């Protein structure tokens, strides 16, 4: 009885064509829903790859394979007309097996390679990890495979408990060290590595897929921190713009303000000797060395000032300092200083370059000469030799803006403003009350936004005199809250890239706890990555810990250097343009294979990836630096089971051709042969027929 029931069930399911059709329709429905309704995927916290790798699809696929095998074996006789169907079914099974193997072993991600640099790692395209720094050094990467992706979690949403999963709770960062006995690498907890008494534990207690961290500053008597508030009135809108500087937090230590015209930095220094050293250093950035005959000397100089050169009899007036001077011929960018030189007999202009021996003189008052004078191929005065060097041990020079203000808060309640311009000018102003006003010039004649009218007036109209109010703020505290970006303001591609993800992490060490917001940081393990979470001083230790959220990093199968990057433009395109429609993007790569110690040069470009390790890996052109073409982004992926899938596809194709076009011919021939045989036997002709399909 049981056997009979099982037989009926078997015949109506696994051994049933209609059941197979139902499975196919379910597969189609699953795929259509998963692909067409992103909300369904979001509900289950899955991206495409996760949704199409989930158990319902696996079960459907497995059932389909079993159904195919069973039906093929029991219902389709292995006769010449049926070879096609057999091949197709076996091809489908092979393809499904290949796909299973492919996605089981698949690794894929991206790597950003700056021009001329070598990389050894890439970042996974989907999996995220918590990166841990101790004292500014990355010590651990903890994969967060269970981290949600689409919905918001946290106390604000009353669903923190849903994050209580293995992998998101009780994370104990560790450090990889080499075992003294075996010499093999091993992981030890950070408390062991640093000798802490208590274990450090990290729990993920909040997640936001698309949000910003809003920071506010206030004062609190319990705080011993000091900061600086900088405020200026926008020359266009008249609105007050406020910036906070906090030396104790690397993220708020320095800022660019006034549309990039100005760099401001805060330093808190209680040692009066160091404060004096900083003040002095501002005027000693340009060091000039001179030699005339046997008379030599050094002096610190500033633009606009006159200096007698010791006992040489020469006097110089420093006219300008240019930190970005393109050298004649080579175009190499060097620092250049121009000065007027006067001796008892000669007066001329001289330009000298840092680190170069060349001295270019310009003869004054020559007819037809430019404003600098007539350039000489040989120095007018070979007696005088000048050179200069920039010395900035305290990093007072601006990095990108024209001017930098370094605000010092001192132990005696003062505020000191050290101003240094790229031209080498400097000034020091003290504000004993801790408050002051700095006069600055804002030049907004730079690139225009899409809605700003094009500049039509003289450049001077774009220069605005602005007063910068600066104030020292003692007992400052910083509060960080999550600001969820409304859905109408979200950009889909940026959201998919995950750059606005934030997790809230709770750090625990014994009785001590601290909650921090950890925003996503692109390429977090690279040296130039800016981690956006605060550095937290651990109790009773000398260490500071900092966290970052980023995609998991893996080692590349080869070391890759970007030797060249080329944008191939269409005719009619601005030759300088780095945005728009391009014909091609070409990255010339030098690939060093660590196993064979060989190196090869290859070009990855559109539709033409570079295959490595006999096709087991490929590197393809994925993105580029649309600002300056200074880096390329390569897609990286392995290619497991590709040959199995290819075999499956070929079998399906061959089988289809056989079933659709060869089978009718075979049947026709069989029919003709049967008729001929019947005629030969001199019997009544019987029309040979194709066997009736097995109906279910």
């Amino acid at each position, binding site marked *: 009885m049981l056997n009979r029931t099982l037989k009926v069930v078997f015949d109506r399911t696994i051994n049933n064509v209609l059941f197979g*059709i139902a499975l*196919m329709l379910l597969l*189609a429905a699953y795929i*259509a829903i998963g692909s*067409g309704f992103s909300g369904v995927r979001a509900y289950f916290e899955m991206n*495409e790859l996760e949704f199409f790798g989930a158990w319902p699809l696996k079960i459907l696929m497995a059932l389909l394979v079993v159904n195919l095998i069973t039906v093929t074996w029991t219902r389709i006789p292995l006769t010449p007309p049926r070879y096609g169907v057999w091949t197709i079914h076996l091809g489908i099974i092979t393809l499904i097996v290949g796909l299973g193997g492919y996605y089981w072993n698949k690794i894929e991600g991206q790597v950003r390679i700056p021009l001329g640099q070598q990389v050894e790692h890439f970042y996974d395209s989907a999996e995220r990890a918590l990166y841990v720094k101790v004292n500014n050094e990355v010590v651990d990467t903890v994969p967060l495979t269970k981290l949600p992706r689409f919905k918001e979690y946290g106390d604000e949403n009353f669903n923190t408990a849903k994050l209580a999963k293995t992998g998101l709770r009780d994370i104990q960062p560790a450090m990889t060290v080499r075992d003294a006995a075996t010499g093999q690498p091993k992981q030890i907890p950070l408390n062991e590595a640093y000798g802490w008494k208590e274990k450090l534990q990290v729990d993920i207690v909040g997640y936001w897929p698309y949000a910003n961290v809003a920071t506010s500053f206030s004062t609190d008597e319990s705080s011993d921190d000091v900061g600086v508030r900088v405020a200026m009135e926008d020359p266009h809108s008249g609105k007050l713009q406020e910036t906070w500087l906090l030396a104790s937090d690397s993220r708020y230590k320095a800022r660019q303000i006034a549309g990039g015209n100005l760099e401001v930095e805060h330093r808190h220094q209680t040692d009066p000797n160091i404060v004096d050293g900083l003040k002095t250093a501002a005027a000693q950035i340009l060091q000039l060395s001179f030699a005339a005959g046997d008379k030599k000397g050094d002096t610190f100089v500033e633009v606009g000032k006159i200096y007698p050169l010791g006992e040489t009899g020469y006097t110089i007036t420093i006219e300008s300092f240019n930190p970005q001077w393109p050298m004649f011929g080579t175009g190499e960018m060097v620092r250049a200083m121009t000065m007027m030189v006067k001796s008892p007999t000669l007066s001329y202009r001289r330009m000298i370059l840092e680190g170069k021996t060349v001295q270019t003189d310009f003869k004054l008052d020559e007819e037809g000469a430019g404003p600098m004078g007539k350039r000489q191929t040989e120095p007018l005065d070979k007696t005088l030799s000048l050179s200069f060097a920039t010395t900035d041990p305290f990093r007072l020079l601006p990095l990108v803006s024209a001017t930098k203000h370094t605000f010092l808060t001192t132990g005696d309640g003062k505020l000191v403003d050290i101003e240094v311009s790229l031209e080498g000018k400097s000034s020091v102003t003290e504000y004993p009350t801790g408050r002051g006003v700095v006069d600055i010039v804002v030049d907004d004649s730079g690139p225009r936004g899409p809605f700003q009218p094009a500049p039509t007036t003289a450049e001077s109209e774009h220069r605005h005199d602005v007063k910068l109010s600066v104030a020292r703020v003692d007992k400052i505290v910083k509060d960080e809250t999550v600001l969820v970006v409304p859905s109408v303001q979200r950009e889909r591609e940026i959201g998919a890239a995950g750059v606005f993800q934030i997790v809230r992490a709770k750090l625990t060490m014994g009785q001590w706890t601290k909650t921090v917001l950890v925003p996503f940081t692109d390429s977090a393990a690279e040296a130039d990555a800016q981690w956006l979470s605060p550095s937290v001083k651990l109790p009773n230790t000398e260490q500071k810990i900092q966290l970052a959220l980023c995609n998991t990093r893996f080692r590349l199968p080869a070391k890759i250097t970007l030797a060249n990057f080329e944008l191939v433009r269409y*005719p009619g395109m601005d*030759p300088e343009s780095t945005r728009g429609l391009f014909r*091609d993007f070409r990255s010339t790569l030098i690939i060093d294979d660590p196993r064979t110690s060989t190196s090869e040069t290859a070009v990855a470009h559109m539709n033409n990836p570079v295959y490595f390790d006999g096709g087991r890996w490929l590197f393809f052109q994925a993105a580029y630096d649309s600002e300056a073409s200074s880096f390329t982004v390569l897609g990286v992926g392995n290619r497991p089971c*590709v040959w199995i899938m290819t075999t499956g596809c070929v079998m399906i194709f061959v089988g289809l051709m056989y079933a659709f076009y060869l089978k009718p011919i075979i049947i026709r021939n069989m029919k003709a042969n049967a008729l001929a045989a019947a005629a030969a036997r001199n019997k009544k002709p019987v029309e040979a027929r194709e066997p009736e399909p097995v109906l279910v």
Partner: protein
Amino acid sequence: MKRDRQECLPYERSAMRNLFAFIVLLLLGLVSPALADNFSSKLKFDEFRKVTVQDRLTLKTFDTYARQTINTISGKSSLDGEDAVYTVIDIACRPEKYVDRNIIKIKNVPLRQDFMRLTNLDATERDRILQEGTISLTTWTSEPVQQLMQQLQAKEIFKAKAIQQVNEAAGTLQNLAGQFVLVRLIPPSDKAADKKNWIGLANVIGNVAAVRPMPAGVGTAPAALPGYDDATVAKAFDALAKVTVFWQHEQPESVNEQLNLAAELLPQINPAVYPSSLNRAVELMYNRAFKMTIPGAFLYFGAFVCFLVSARSGVVGVRLWGLRIFVLAFLVHTVGIGVRWWLVATQHNSWFDGIPIKNQFESVLMSAWFGALIGLVLEMRRSRAIFGAAASFVGWLSLVAIFATPYVTGTEIGAEIGQVAGVLMSYWLYLHVTLVVASYALIAMAFALSVWWLSNYYKNYGTFKRRPARQLSGDVVDLDEMPAGGNVSGGAIQLSGGFLQTLARVMFVPMPRSAVEVKSTKAVSSTSTLSDDTTGDAGARFLATLDACNLVVLQLAFWVLGVGIILGAVWADQSWGRPWGWDPKETFALVTWIVYLVVVHVRVATAQKAWWTAVLSIIGFFVMLFNWIGVNFFLVGLHSYA
């Protein structure tokens, strides 16, 4: 709940109005010149419209450039019924006539609604913007409007694309207004730093002695560009400068004279890089002939009617005329593709890069062509009029669709020749897309046959429902078998003699009587053992014949789509690093293929094979249509350019 006319949403009214305007334009297109003003009616652009301009990374005739420019600004092919060439030059020479006119099109209706927030515009103007969807350059660049757009871009990021469209329209008008000197009419010289970039008159001022001394306060003249014959450049410059002056003074004879002179001189500046006069003339004719879509559609429709009548009536002569018209339509269609291929290839200096299958217009054009080719071969070989009817129907519908879509929906589908994303410059594109769009044409043919089958089924049985008894299906029809006996197909006819004799008769070659004897299809195997409809009436047997034809087309569609998907996976592996990424376009192509996979299996597992085939084929068609068109609009994925 039924809505009355007053409840019609603005975008619905807009679409209806566009459709109406489209029809009226078609009917009255030739009358429009009569509306032109006196000055414009005396202008002759026959030569000047053929000069070459570099615009949007493409070399094109001034005529094409002008139409595209007016279309970008206003969303229409012409303004005030004037020739687009006239309007473009008029904007360049007399910008004051246009900057305050409401000619900039705002295509996005929700964006128009945002203008209701602007209190500096009066209520009437706000309503007009909402209704008409147009705005002037002055209003668009005004501070309140720009502030509103900034707010929208910051707070409602999904409107960025809509704002970009208006920005592009306004930018095009702004760049053209009074700026004839910026239009890139001058070919690069052999010594130019960038030998592919054309330049405007403003760039060659240094080569024109007459204008080199700059007025006080303007600065110094730029250096002369190397490699040009300054005398020729100066003459062309002078002619175009005079066009502006004479135009402003409305002296049509003088304008005509200078335009013709400029049209003669511009190719002489560097004949080596200037497109040939044949190339330019062909481009002009191609555009004038609606890119061969309307002539092709007209002929396909004629063929479709003939095939339909023939299939039902059994009149051989009508079918022959259907074949003749169909061949003519196919030739026109082929010429359209060939001309386009040539024109695109000259842009790239490569026949390979020029294969026109890189945007929606071209893929539909090619899809219909493949459908027509396969339909023609099947129709000639297995003469039924049924294949011809299905293929000509698909050809007609496709060509009408690609012609009408930009006018009715305001959506640009790539009808104008231009550049595409570099990723599409691959031989994999041709293999993958060609096969996929060919399968789409076959799926559309199967859809037509299935609808035909269902309508005949309803006619025969009075219901669309599946009848419980087993039915005749195409499995009992041997399309290759030459039948004997009466006309049992209900109209499906067959000529004896096969492909060559059919071809001969199409070509009006007289054939001996015996060879052209009309024979009907056998349609049903005499040994069929089906329980009812075994012998079947004529209607049932016609259904079986239709089903057999449908099966031929479906088999082709099934494997062609399958191979297309697999080749797409190979391309994806190279381009995106994995063969299958569950991208919406991929997944819905797979869903379409699975639907036809089910069709294959229901023919084994059910008794009502033909009914299931027809129903699933119709479902498959809509899944395919969603994949081809719908996914582009509703879903976001890697195939965003497709």
